[in-house]
């Protein structure tokens, strides 16, 4: 976890410095704001990882001498098949078509999005379809 944290914090620091130099020198706001946000985007997860790297036991993937046996057991839960990503994707498609062809495309669009959100959440709770 330490390397991950350092990676993001390092990038964030660099963006912060670059932002300071640029903003003070150019007095142009758009770029300054965007670089500032870039810095935040690195610092927020970076400091989260940093906190965790100090509060959790080192993981097997951070240990250069770990054996594969250490990875035995529960890794994560992976869903089997699911129709909801497709449903949600189609919903998003119709929502975008509404931007182009008119508001009434929102009806199927939002319906599909809502259906997918309910279906996907329920599937997550239930533990997936066979």
């Amino acid at each position, binding site marked *: 976890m330490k390397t991950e944290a350092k990676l993001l914090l390092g990038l964030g620091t660099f963006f912060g410095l670059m932002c300071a130099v640029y903003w003070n020198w150019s007095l142009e706001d758009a770029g300054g704001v965007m670089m500032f946000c870039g810095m935040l*985007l690195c610092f927020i997860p970076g400091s989260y990882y940093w906190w965790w790297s100090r509060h959790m036991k080192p993981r097997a*993937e951070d240990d250069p001498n770990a054996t594969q*046996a250490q990875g035995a057991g529960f890794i994560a839960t992976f869903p089997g*098949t699911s129709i909801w990503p497709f449903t949600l994707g189609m919903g998003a498609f119709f929502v975008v078509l509404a931007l182009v062809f008119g508001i009434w495309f929102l009806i199927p669009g939002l319906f599909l999005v809502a259906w997918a959100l309910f279906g996907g959440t329920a599937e997550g709770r239930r533990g997936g379809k066979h």
Partner: protein
Amino acid sequence: MTDLLDPPVQLPPVHEEVHGHDHEEHHGPTGILKWLTTTDHKIIGLSYTVTSVIMLIIGGIFAEIIRAQLATPNGSLVSLAQYNELFTMHGSVMIYLFAGPFAFGALANIMVPIQIGAPDMAYPRLNALSYWLYLTGAITMLSGFFTAGGAANFGWVAYAPLSNSVNTPGTGADLWIGGLLLTGFSAIFTGVNLCATIFYLRAPGMTMFRMPIFTWNMLVTAILILLAFPVLTAGLIMLYCDRHFGTHIFSVQGGGVPVLWQHIFWFWGHPEVYILALPFFGMATEILAVFSRKPVFGYKGMVFATLTIAALSLGVWAHHMFTTGVVLLPFFSIMSLLIAVPTGIKIFNWIGTMWRGEIWFSTAMLMAIGFVVTFLIGGLTGIYLASPPLDFFTHDTYFVVAHFHSVVMALVLAAMGGLYYWGPKITGYLLNERIGKLQFWFLFIGTQVFTFPQYALGLDGMPRRVAVYPHDPQWKWLNDWSTFGAILIGISTVLFVVNVAVSWKKYPAGDNPWDAQTLEWFTTSPPPHHNFYRLPPIRSERPTWDYNHPEHRSIEHGTDHEVPLEKEPIS
């Protein structure tokens, strides 16, 4: 450490919701339903591969029409309006729908989890959603051709005020914006997925500094995606509001700032060129190492070069805007020139990797070497462009077109190398090497014949994005050569399709046809559901090689060299 000598460990079955607990018999829907409902990163990756290669072909057809039009000064193959649509959609298809999705949706999606010993991507359903957003986005963008006003025609950069509703009315432009919104979210979700996978699903012993360079580059690419794409999405929403809701963010009349669009676009756009480039750097690095039968030269230097490129790439966007006259020239010039340093380090490391290696000139290797050469040309001309006085002279001429075609054609070479190298892992079958080599020569020579005249044309002042040009014997001659190069490139693409057809299920690959180094070559071809039956000990950045070549094993971490290893065949 003695565990290096242990046989590979049988992996425990991956816990899967409700499913039965064994890998081999994976009952599920078949046929189209399987395609619609899958959450397996390999199947999603394969869908991405097929879709993005189709996009490459569609974009290529646009390009051939463009070059045919330019073969004569007063070409009349297409109208001026159609020409605008063609170059806009050529650029858009290639950048938004081919290069990016091919890199992070296709090859990375399939290879990153396997390279780090993970059973799948961290968020398989989000991964599936990414693909659907990409597919629908592509359909949306391309469907502009079927509307009355035609497809978008304001260039792939959609500069304001050309892109507002007065100058570009019509649904084609809105479809372009909508398609880009969808593919943009698709990219963001893939970025999240790659970061989470690489941070959380590595196999035991796979420390960050043992990840294959391709995986490293994909991590950095994913971070860049997360930094850059939301900016583009926000910009597109602003553009849409300007077009339809009467806001004046990018129009002078309403108190807006047209150049703001350029800032937003290139703040995404320059990192985007590295989002495109870094994955292909990674592919080439792997290929060069494997076919030189050596480890990557300067592994850590390579990683730091990648990180430096990514860090700097956020601070160079306005080198695309030098001629607007409102950007801080020295800052952007210095930052852009600095990028050349890590890029140069990479070139030296690639040469170092090949240096005194036992080089095996397979098709993949040829493509990777072609990549290095072509990329070097593109990178060097980028340095010219990063110098404002030279850029004022060459901006918006064919010199710029040639610059970025050298770089992006280098990426196509690497992409083809990636398909020849990893294709067998995905499909289980090799491609024909003879046709492959022929394809390489057409592609490589075609690329140079295509771009070199454009450099000359640009220096001679030929502007880009024009359908007709003055009768000048020299311009005509140079354009003819460029068109000839484009034909050679077209033939190479046809050869690729022919190769796929000819080699269809003909040459079984086996698990490790290249005697490669990284973890994906330890499992079967194609890998089973959830990727591995077992994993070798991971003690360096090339675990498969260590396992198959005990004599060369890296002695990092105090390996005991004396004890012989019982080599077990990898099934």
